[in-house]
């Protein structure tokens, strides 16, 4: 049987057009390549 309250918690407000700018700024674009570069820089530093 479905738990309505728990299911309802999974729903979040959808971003509106007025919030587009903040949405874009908050977008996390960090990827695995960044992680490799970071690790490479650390190994070079050591």
């Amino acid at each position, binding site marked *: 049987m*479905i738990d309505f309250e728990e299911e309802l918690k999974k*729903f979040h407000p*959808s971003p509106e057009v007025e919030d*587009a700018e903040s949405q874009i700024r908050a977008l996390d*674009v960090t990827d695995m390549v960044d992680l*490799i570069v970071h690790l490479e820089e650390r190994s070079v530093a050591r």
Partner: protein
Amino acid sequence: MRCFNCGAELTANPFCTNCGADIREYRRIIWTSNQYYNDGLTKAKVRDLSGAVLSLRACLKLNRMNIEARNLLGLVYFEMGEAVAAFSEWVVSKSMKPEKNIADDFMETIQGNPSRLDTINQSIKKYNQALLYAKQGSLDLAVIQLKKVLHMNPNLIVAYELLGLLYLQSEEFARAKRIISSALKIDRNNTRLLYYLKEAEEGIAARFASEPAASRRRKSGSRTSQDAITYTSGNETIIQPVNSVERHSSSAIFNILIGAVVGAALIFFLVLPARIRKASEDMNAQIKEVSDELTVKNADIEEQDKRIEALQTENDELKGSLGDLAGSSGMAERYDALAEAALNYMRNPDDVTGTEALLSRIPIETVSGNGMSLAISSNTVSKLDPSIYSQAFRNLYDYLDSDVAVRAARTYIDRGKEELENEEYQLAIADLLRATEIAPSSDEALFYLAESYKESGDSVHATQAYSRLVNEMGDSEYADRARSNLTTGAATDNDAQNNDNNDDAAGHEDEGGDDEDTGAEDEDAAAQALAMQILAGAGNNGAGAE
């Protein structure tokens, strides 16, 4: 592929030939990212939108520079009704690759239709409101709001999910199944939707199982084994109703008749009025057209009438002018008279009276000068009006008149005097009258005219002629003779009057026997009175002069 460390072009070696960085892990990451992109693309093609979103996000988590994956993610978001998320991905894509990026086209397409963008935004606002209602426990309001959202933005998957959840909560499993099925046509492999669908189907099944069989039969109207015969023919199971009654052919005919009647009524009430209205409109249009034409033609007729009237007026004027020219008193007649006079003058220069008679047929509208005596009357000013006669006409007329008029007047005077002596008084009066007409200032003609009147017994005209001579030509030699004749005539008339009075006193013995003389006596009395007045006036003038 380029080196993540220095950006140099990589070769088949497991390290960068430029900076020496180890690129084995990097290559694996890029390869895995591409695999996710391919997976996302495949899912998107089969409308597994939520699956595509997961794959493409994983792809971008591995390699954020995969522009195609980011653009495709935006497209999938847009297809799911998430316009803001789609825009965000496209904007990031554009910032990473400003040139030759298809994200430009996507954004221009959306921004080129502001009303559509506004509708999407409104639908998102309503969805957020509905979510708030649901979290506050106002499920009915949330359902109403979500229905509006789906009417405005039929692709908003989260709205389908929330509405399906609300229907499940209210145990409206059939509705929940229907709305979830609609959402699955957009996003075929959405895990949450599939989960809700499963719940809805289970709810339907549980309800079906819990209801008594009789109740289901009433609701569905399905037949059981009691009222049907079931048998198998090959692979097919045939259920034949037992209590069903075959319909008679008469009922079929009755139904056909009812259908025909209903059809006729439809035609009568729906089709016929429409046709009548159309015919009426056509007729009105034709009437209007004809009316317009009639108005135009009436205007033409009125204009033609005015033209006819103007032409008629012009025709009348021209006829009048023609009559003036060609009539008995017209210009043609005048030219004829002048020509005849000229011809007569050339043939018979001594026939001055004939020539003058012909000239007299030319009317003189304006007499410019004629008050001279016969002795100087040859020096005349033209009698003719220059506005009527041409210069040549007037020249010829004046030439003839100057030569003929004096001589004609002389001839009339001489002939009148001769006729007076011969006691042919009427002929003398006629000739002398003509002489005075030709030469109004001729004292001789006027005197002998008065003498002729006097001798013919017309004392009134005689007195008038004498008086005219006395008044107008007082210095003339004939004026004294006229004055003495007037005096003598007045004395004679006084004596005659006295005698008449004496006769009346004697007793009117011959009363009624002499009526013919009464008129002559009255004329004599009038002439006598006129003569007395003239003489008195002449005496006063003379005294004043002295």
